[in-house]
């Protein structure tokens, strides 16, 4: 399909960001917003076309394209070229990102009151960075987009957040740069020591590897850990997770939606691309560690989630807890677990994005996110309550909703896993099973506290959802229900990729 170009998909948001920033563009909020929404809708449809024409039986990358500058590839003399291509996993993440940006722009109207030009261009810049990251075939191009995404996040959080947002954004950006430094260090080592074996100076992710015959085990583990720190920071996994609830609780509502929609995906994508594909043997060695780390994630973040005073922090910790399932699924080293892990990251982005949409509706009306000052809102906002109920059930993993299939797959995968420590694996799977009950606990606690307890005096005159909000939430709920009923529609897209990765892992 010649009209489907990944370059256009990635660069179009940057172009639109520049158009919005251009001095001659009208500085009128309605015009800017409409322009942005129209573009985001078209962009989403364009991304969906990739899925329509995607050949699910194909192994490897599709839609390959190279970005050249007047016929020159980017850094040819260093073996780096701006090549792009997507496989099933990347394509799903790309579509999810465009969808989340669209939802964010629809929810931005009521929350963003100033600096419209800057806001919309930053959102598009961020979208571009995330899309480029998913499509990059080259390690350093991946890193360019990875770092490029930090700058918009800093401004989005600090400029439109509450009074503490600036410090939180600074803390996050600085911590992320430190994590990126580890990532960059690992990449530089990998880049050169791959060259030393193969004599081809390249940074193409598919061809990179560090041959275990040439380098000592500790050195490979060292490089592996560098990558792991970089990605664990972004996912976020426990130990590196503090930034996520921190900036989520301080930034404004649309930014919450945007962040919850992609952080997990980018981190998991990095883990799959680098830690699994480039270092399969080290990953096998680390699998038990990662499995325990995943369990700690589930239990610890879930327990913390219940005691949080703010709704935003509560939901953020709930999302961190869900990332533990992803880790558990990846470390099973079998196809069931792997499929479940990828599906879980998509599903959790979708579900928590929807939860933040609900929170944004509530925050707009009540101007507070403290759980003690909310309560019983369901009586005055019935539409909101019923839609939120579907989303909360989805987050728990109720059958026929989106989170059910991945959790089932992950726990089955853990039971079937062929790791050496059989007893530990079985115990881990059992704890994971029990952890679903924990997740039910904190999600239902959140739902009960916000919607069902005694209605406070000052909230008696709250209005229910506006038609636009209802439409956005219904669209999200429909997606959640559809993917819950028909999970194979997602899994089919990346099944060929997962079989490749499992082949690599079996070696």
């Amino acid at each position, binding site marked *: 399909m010649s009209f489907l170009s990944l370059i256009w998909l990635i660069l179009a948001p940057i172009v639109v960001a520049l158009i919005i920033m251009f001095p001659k563009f009208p500085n009128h909020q309605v015009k800017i917003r409409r322009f942005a929404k129209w573009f985001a809708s078209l962009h989403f449809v364009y991304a969906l076309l990739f899925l329509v024409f995607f050949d699910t039986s194909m192994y490897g990358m599709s839609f390959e394209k190279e970005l050249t500058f007047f016929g020159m590839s980017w850094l040819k003399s260093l073996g780096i070229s701006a090549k792009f291509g997507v496989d099933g996993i990347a394509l799903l993440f790309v579509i999810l990102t465009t969808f989340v940006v669209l939802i964010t722009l629809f929810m931005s109207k009521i929350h963003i009151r100033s600096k419209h030009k800057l806001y919309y261009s930053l959102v598009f810049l961020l979208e571009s960075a995330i899309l480029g990251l998913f499509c990059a075939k080259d390690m350093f191009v991946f890193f360019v987009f990875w*770092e490029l995404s930090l700058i918009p996040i800093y401004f989005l959080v600090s*400029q439109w957040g509450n009074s503490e947002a600036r410090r939180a954004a600074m803390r996050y950006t*600085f911590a992320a740069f430190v994590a*990126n*430094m580890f990532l960059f*260090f690992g990449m530089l080592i990998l880049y050169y020591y791959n060259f030393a074996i193969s004599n081809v100076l390249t940074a193409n992710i598919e061809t990179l590897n560090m041959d275990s015959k040439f380098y000592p085990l500790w050195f490979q583990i060292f490089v592996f850990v560098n990558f792991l720190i970089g990605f664990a920071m972004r996912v976020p996994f426990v130990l590196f997770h503090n930034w996520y609830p921190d900036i989520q609780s301080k930034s404004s509502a649309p930014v919450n939606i945007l962040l919850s929609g992609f952080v997990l995906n980018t981190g998991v994508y990095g883990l799959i691309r680098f830690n699994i594909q480039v270092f399969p043997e080290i990953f096998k060695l680390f699998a038990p560690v990662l499995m325990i780390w995943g369990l700690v994630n589930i239990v610890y973040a879930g327990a913390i989630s219940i005691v949080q005073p703010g709704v935003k922090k509560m939901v953020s910790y709930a999302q961190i807890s869900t990332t533990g399932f992803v880790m558990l699924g990846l470390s099973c080293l079998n196809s069931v677990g792997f499929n479940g892990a990828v599906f879980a990251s998509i599903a959790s982005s979708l579900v928590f994005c929807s939860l933040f949409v609900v929170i944004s509706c509530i925050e707009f009306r009540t101007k507070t996110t403290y759980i003690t000052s909310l309560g019983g809102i369901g009586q005055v906002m019935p539409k909101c309550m019923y839609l939120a109920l579907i989303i909360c059930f989805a987050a728990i993993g109720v059958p026929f909703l989106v989170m059910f299939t991945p959790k089932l797959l992950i726990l089955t995968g853990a039971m079937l896993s062929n790791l050496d420590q059989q007893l530990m694996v079985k115990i881990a799977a059992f704890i994971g099973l029990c952890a679903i009950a924990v997740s039910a606990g904190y999600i239902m606690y959140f739902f009960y506290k916000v919607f069902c307890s005694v209605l406070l005096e000052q909230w008696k005159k709250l209005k229910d959802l506006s038609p636009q909000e209802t439409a956005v939430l219904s669209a999200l709920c429909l997606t959640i229900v559809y993917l819950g009923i028909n999970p194979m529609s997602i899994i089919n897209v990346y099944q060929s990729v997962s079989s490749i990765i499992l082949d690599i892992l079996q070696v």
Partner: protein
Amino acid sequence: MYEIINMISTAYFPEFIIIVFVLINIFASLFFDTHFYKLSKWITLLGIVLALASTFYLQIDPEAYAFDGTFLSNIYTVFFKILILICGFFLVLLSRNMIREKRDRAFEYFTVFLSGLLFAMCTVSATDFVGLFVCLEALSLSCYMLLSFTKSPDAKQLTFGYLIQGAVVSSLFLLGLSLIYGLCAQVNFEQISLYFANASVMQTQPQILLTFSLVLLVCTFLFRLGLVPFSSWLPDTFKGASYPICAYISSVPVLACFGILAKLLMTFYNYTFTMKIVFAFIAVVTIILGSLSAIRQENLKRLMAYSMSVQSGIMLLGLCVFSVYSLSSVLFYLFCYVFANIGAWSAIILLYNSARLESLSDLKGLWYHRPYYVMAFTIVLIALAGLAPTSGFVSKLYIFSAVARSGFVFLPFLMIALIGCVVMIYAYWRIIRSMFRRIDTGIEIDNHVISSKYILYACSFATIFICLFADKIIRLCQLVAYYM
């Protein structure tokens, strides 16, 4: 006569033109009064442009000598000369406002300025230690004289340390030079390296003396580049000096010193394995100390002083793992550094001239007054910090990949350098952060400072442009490094 013309046209053409224009400036100062002070600027600009054009007429394939082989001209030196001249071109435009305030000394300023450029160019071309010493000394003299242009009360006190330390370091250089001469009775780099290549000599001569004299020689470069044992002069001197002169000190001597230091290291590389580690250590300590000091600075000039120190540290780290690959990465880094540095200084000069903004707290709320300045300044700062879509990222990638491929020994140094770079990112980020603050101070901005505005836009555009078309420039740098 014919021989002289031939020598000039093959090897010495740009320097010759600069000399002519220095003389024109001196004579013009005799015939024109203060009223025509702008004339000096145009004379200087014309001289620089002509010198730039004349570099294309040099016969540099493979190389040409002048003055009995004491002056070398090849692709490597011409690369540095072009960079120095581009720097000079921008700096002349940046000194506009300073000259307007001191009209009576305009001709004097530009005469000293041009001779500084001249000696920077000659430094790169030097082939023996005597010529090198003379050029370096003259280059420092021009710096001292430029520093004396500042009239603020504490300026003399602040810049005096530079003069004293510079004098001490020069005498150390002379001592090292005399020791080397005592060892082998040669001053030419090639001859000295040939002398020591003879294995029987190495057994009879004490090696420790050679290392000691090299250390003494290297001190002067460490001083000019603001590297660690000699970096204490930088922040004070920058605080005392005028803005365009800070920009001058942070770019022209850096280019000249790296040009000649690379050549020296290549000449003496085989005899000083331990020097490699020492250099890496110096570089890493500079990066860490510079970046840790930079994050506490309030004054923009002091911050930029530490920034220069850190950038030279990164370049030294690339230089000390000596290979053609790493040399080309250093050349590319210098190329990117020049544009980013000039861009940052032009932004700072612009802010100072138009609204007297000097410290980070003055910059608060600037975004709401001049969004396009702020955007261009942000891009340039991101380039200096080495972040993604700018030339800084590519140059950092290149130089650190050169360090990574030089063996296990350098990996810890690389790690520490990367940590220092992250700290430095924070230092640059503080400037960006304060420009985006919500506090609304009534900054009054004068719109008439045009030349520095265009330089700022040009440099911010150039940093992105270099990033996209980096391949061509990297190939050029590899060619240049190969020819050295």
